[in-house]
């Protein structure tokens, strides 16, 4: 691996080598800067970063492709020891020498082409017509798809998401490239499919001797699949090294911070969120871009960008003070659930809830025979894959889903299904926070207006000691947001800030139960950690009860006292979180737990 300023000498044995790569917005700031990395044959390197870190830009530029408006400013690229120009002239190499697998397979396949035609198109682009066409069935078999002629005649809309991603992989393999760049190839797939595809990638790299660059936001996934990991922050690789070394003893404070932010169902712990938020493109500070958030920054860090420094052979870090980065200590790892107070009163009880979706002529049962209780100050997690009915249950409790039967009891008294028929007090006591921060807040209302609305509609204003404005100020403080944000509009806020405002708006009603429906799934892990900590505080300090809905077992382990596992609208397992996760009984729970990626697992495998 090369330090800054060194000139890469051609090495025949490398599958890919890139040095000093800088990509920027035309006439604008850099998006990635001075990126160097190397890839051995059949090696998998994981590129990890949060949104805005430049990881996708890096992946695309390795194929000589920039999104409109961006350009490669400098850098050299060698494929198999041959220097190539990083521009449109790479067309003949794309797909043949280096291939790409995109994040969203649903968008990546031409809806007008059958699967066979889609694969043939790539091959035709690189082969003489006379050379004939590849055995499509062999390729499909290689990625575990049905090799039948019937299957290859299907259109993309006729196959599942996991199958689409396998077709994308088959397309990438069709010309036997030496390197494949995979950009978040399993994001959006359920954990079981993700786990299977990761296994297949490992098999394919051995079979085809392909080197891979696996771009993702998920450290646990690269922990499972990658030989080496490169961590990106603000357009630079801040640390890269062998997977085990990097995960067990991270040297960059950002890598360490990321590791401490990841909830892990194997070893639940208190998450330690990093302070501050990631800097965006165009706002990088003069020195180390992480310095403003770094607990060990010195004035030197604010002055100049640290060079890549070797830690051990093959492990390098961009930090002046990497030697003082503390290890990921076991006490940070050790953590325990707060034992639920089984004596406190039941806030919500659901008895034999059944929810249906009525379409024209068809009725789909979204959830059946759901029963549970939530006590004061307790957090109950509802876990399931997409389509398991968990959101419908949340909406039914919030009074937004009318096609329900069974009973919903709030502090012992029965609630009608429709929110508008419930009393003001009933509506006040249950609040819902939804998944997507993009539409959680009315884009045309300021933060202040958004938070004021439930106060005006649901609260008895005579009980507010400081009036509505005073209440808004104290709510913002409670969710750790600065007062000045009150006059901002949602499009001026980051995802994490938006989600905090949404929580503040729910708290504005002074609820007893807050339903959190996948509220962190759109957030980066470091932001997620901070939101989780906030929820924990609300729960312990104010006795708020939480119904926490998620597909992520790591989150459950971090926050929930009790747990319900939902499969196809039916509860298949329930119990205290630690015992369910530690000793699952139901087949489905076992499969979920086995498939969920875990950093601890991957370290255990390697050490």
């Amino acid at each position, binding site marked *: 691996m090369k330090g800054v300023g060194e000139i890469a000498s051609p090495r025949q044995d490398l599958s890919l080598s890139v040095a000093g790569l800088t990509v920027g*917005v035309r006439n*604008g*700031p850099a*998006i990635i800067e001075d990126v160097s990395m190397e890839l051995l044959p059949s090696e998998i390197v994981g590129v990890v970063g949060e*949104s*805005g870190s*430049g*990881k*996708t*830009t890096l992946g*695309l530029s390795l194929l000589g492709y920039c*999104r409109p*408006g*961006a350009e490669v400013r400098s850098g050299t690229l060698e494929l198999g020891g041959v220097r190539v120009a990083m521009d449109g002239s790479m067309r003949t190499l794309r797909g043949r020498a280096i291939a790409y697998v*995109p*994040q*969203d397979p649903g*968008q990546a396949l031409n809806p007008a082409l059958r699967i066979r035609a889609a694969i043939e198109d790539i091959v035709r682009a690189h082969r003489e017509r006379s050379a004939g066409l590849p055995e499509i069935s062999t390729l499909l078999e290689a990625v575990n798809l049905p090799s039948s002629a019937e299957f290859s005649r299907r259109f993309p809309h006729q196959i599942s998401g996991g199958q689409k991603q396998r077709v994308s992989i088959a397309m990438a393999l069709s010309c036997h490239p030496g390197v494949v760049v995979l*950009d*978040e190839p399993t994001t959006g797939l359920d954990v079981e499919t993700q786990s299977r595809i990761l296994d297949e990638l490992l098999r394919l790299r051995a079979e085809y001797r392909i080197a891979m660059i696996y771009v993702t*936001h998920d450290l646990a996934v690269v922990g499972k699949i990658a030989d080496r990991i490169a961590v990106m922050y603000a357009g630079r690789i801040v640390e890269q090294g062998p997977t085990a070394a990097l995960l067990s003893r991270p040297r960059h404070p950002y890598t360490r911070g990321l590791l401490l932010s990841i909830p892990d169902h194997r070893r639940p712990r208190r998450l330690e969120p990093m302070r501050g938020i990631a800097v*965006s*493109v*165009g*706002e990088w500070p003069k020195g180390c871009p992480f310095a403003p958030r770094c607990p060990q920054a010195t004035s030197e860090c604010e002055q100049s960008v640290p060079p890549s420094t070797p830690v051990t052979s093959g492990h390098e870090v961009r930090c002046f003070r990497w030697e003082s980065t503390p290890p990921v200590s076991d006490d940070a790892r050790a953590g325990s659930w707060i034992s639920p107070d089984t004596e406190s009163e039941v806030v919500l009880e659901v008895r034999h809830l059944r929810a249906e979706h009525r379409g024209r002529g068809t009725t789909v049962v979204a959830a059946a025979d759901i029963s549970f209780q939530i006590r004061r100050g307790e957090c109950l997690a509802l876990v399931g894959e997409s389509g398991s009915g968990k959101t419908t249950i949340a*909406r039914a409790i*919030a*009074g*937004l889903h009318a096609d329900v039967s069974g009973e919903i009891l709030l502090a012992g008294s029965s609630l009608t299904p429709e*929110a*508008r028929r*419930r009393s*003001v007090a009933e*509506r006040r006591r*249950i*609040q*819902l926070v*939804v*998944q*997507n921060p993009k*539409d*959680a*807040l*009315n*884009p*045309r*209302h300021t933060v202040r207006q*958004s938070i004021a*609305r*439930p106060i005006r*509609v*649901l609260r008895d204003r005579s009980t507010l000691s400081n009036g509505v404005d005073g209440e808004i100020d104290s709510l913002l403080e409670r969710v750790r947001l600065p007062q000045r944000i009150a006059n901002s*509009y949602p*499009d*001026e806020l980051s995802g994490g800030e938006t989600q905090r405002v*949404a929580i503040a*708006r729910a708290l504005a*009603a002074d609820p007893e139960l807050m339903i959190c429906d996948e509220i962190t799934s759109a957030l980066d892990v470091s932001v997620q950690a901070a939101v989780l900590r906030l929820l924990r505080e609300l729960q312990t300090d104010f006795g708020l009860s939480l119904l926490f809905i998620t597909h992520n077992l790591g989150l459950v382990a971090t926050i929930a006292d009790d747990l319900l596992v939902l499969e196809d609208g039916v509860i298949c397992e329930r119990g205290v979180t630690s015992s369910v996760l530690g000793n699952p009984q139901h087949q489905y729970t076992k499969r979920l737990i086995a498939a969920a990626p875990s950093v601890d697992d991957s370290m255990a495998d390697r050490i």
Partner: protein
Amino acid sequence: MSSATAETKVARPARPRRHRWEMLRAPEGVIGLVLLTFTVAVAVIGPIVAPHPLAQPVGPPGEPPGHGFPLGTDYLGRDVLSRVLYGGWPILWLSAVITLFTYVIGVLIGMVAALGRRLTDSVLMRFVDLLLAFPPLLLVLVLIASAGSSSTILIISIVLVLFPGLARIVRSATLEVSTAGYIEAAFARGERAPAVMWHEILPNIGPVILADLGVRFSFAIALVAGVNFLGLGESPPSANWALMVAENNVVITSNVWGVLAPAVMLMVLTVSINLLGDAYVRNRSKAR
């Protein structure tokens, strides 16, 4: 590649909130506004400053410009300039009233259909579909044929032509917005549908509605002008730009201005509205 879009978004540094009038910074917005102001001024002030009466012949028919008639005389010997000055108002006020009614009805029906029960939605949308099954101008002509031509009939028939399309746009925009978290939150608070429409939905579908305003207003002008051009609108001797183009065709060889002047005024009016509409749409897509 949602991370890609996320990154493209951060690639643009956070910009202060765009003001609604920022579209006027684009040259087309400025040109549009200047032209529109000019046309409206002519239409409003014109009748006051017109040098000659509207309906009185003041010279020989089809005279070219000169002899105190800067734009010559029309096919009956009336002053073209004065008639151009008189002829904007009838078109402008009719189109404006039509657009206003179209918006009130279209927005209301669209939102009610989207938020109402399935039956309400079906009934309203089938009605809209039925109106959309007629070729636009035809519906207007049929009503004129049976009820005669009057401002009321013109307003009613053109609103019937214009509102269904808007109602559809509003309905689908409302449906799109109505699944958003903040709408759910409002309903979960127990707010009533009218309050949700006013506070939460209308501000958010506003841009969609405004983006349509330019096109729909100019369509209203085109229909009003078209009917008048066909001689099925206002009857002579009253003046309006469309009627003037039609009636002075017979003297086109002797005095071009009888046709050209009102045609150019109509052109300036519709072009200015389309420029403004386009500037708004472009500005909006840039702001996103």
